[in-house]
């Protein structure tokens, strides 16, 4: 599996995307904190965090006795630079704006 494959696979799961959003809101959380926001076992959350870490989207850093989880945006940036720029970012932005505008109306 290539690095890109791992990132796409990690992003393909809604729980893992939710975990990334949680870390985007506030970075450097413990497993216990992340677990408390999800209706899922500690083991399940740890497993999802493992997939995110393997894809490089989450970096674990020790702080005293705690293990803190940090969102690493670089792999997403690499995919952006590799794929989005290539397929004319301008058009993509226009479509995203259109989607947002249409969905706001409903």
């Amino acid at each position, binding site marked *: 599996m290539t690095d890109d494959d791992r990132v796409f696979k990690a992003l393909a799961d809604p729980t893992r995307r939710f975990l990334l959003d949680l870390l985007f809101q506030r970075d450097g959380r413990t497993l216990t904190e992340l677990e408390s926001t999800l209706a899922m076992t500690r083991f399940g959350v740890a497993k999802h965090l493992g997939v995110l870490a393997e894809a*490089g989207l989450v*970096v674990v850093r020790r702080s005293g006795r705690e293990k803190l989880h940090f969102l690493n*945006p670089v792999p997403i*940036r690499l995919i952006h*630079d590799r794929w989005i720029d290539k397929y004319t970012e301008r058009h993509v932005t226009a479509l995203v704006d259109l989607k947002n505008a249409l969905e706001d109306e409903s």
Partner: protein
Amino acid sequence: MTTETTAVTTQVYRVWIKAPQEKIWAAIVDPEWNKRYGYAAPSFFDLKPGGSYSSTASQAMKDFGVAAGFEVPDTIVDGEVVEIDPPRLLVQTWRMLMAPTTAAEPFSRLTYEISESKTQPGVCKLTVTHELAGAPATAAMVAGTDEEGAGGGWAWVLSDLKSMLETGSTFGE
């Protein structure tokens, strides 16, 4: 729980680069290399503990400043080398001087760690840890989350660094 209320002011960035440790080290500390990627402002290190660090404005930045009606200072980032173990570890202080808001904030602490991948031969792991206690404006700038601000921050800089070392060219070239 205390950790729930403690605001974490550290940002962590990691990228895997297919290049030897020495080359990644040079790309960070050698102005001939570090002026080629990211914001393209050359950075100068006096590579010893207590040695000075500064990054100077590129001509493009100065031109941009003139066009936008403000003056870009000659030194846009300053700091000091704290710890050094080439080609594996560089710890430095770092203060962004380009905006008055960030210049007034305390020095942040920046750590570069370069290690060889255990599973992929020829690949190195570069981890950049930026400790930004008491420096929210600097934090927003380097995170690239400030829409009005200075571009993509660390994620963009490291993506460009990887591109330069692996393909020989950067986004701007």
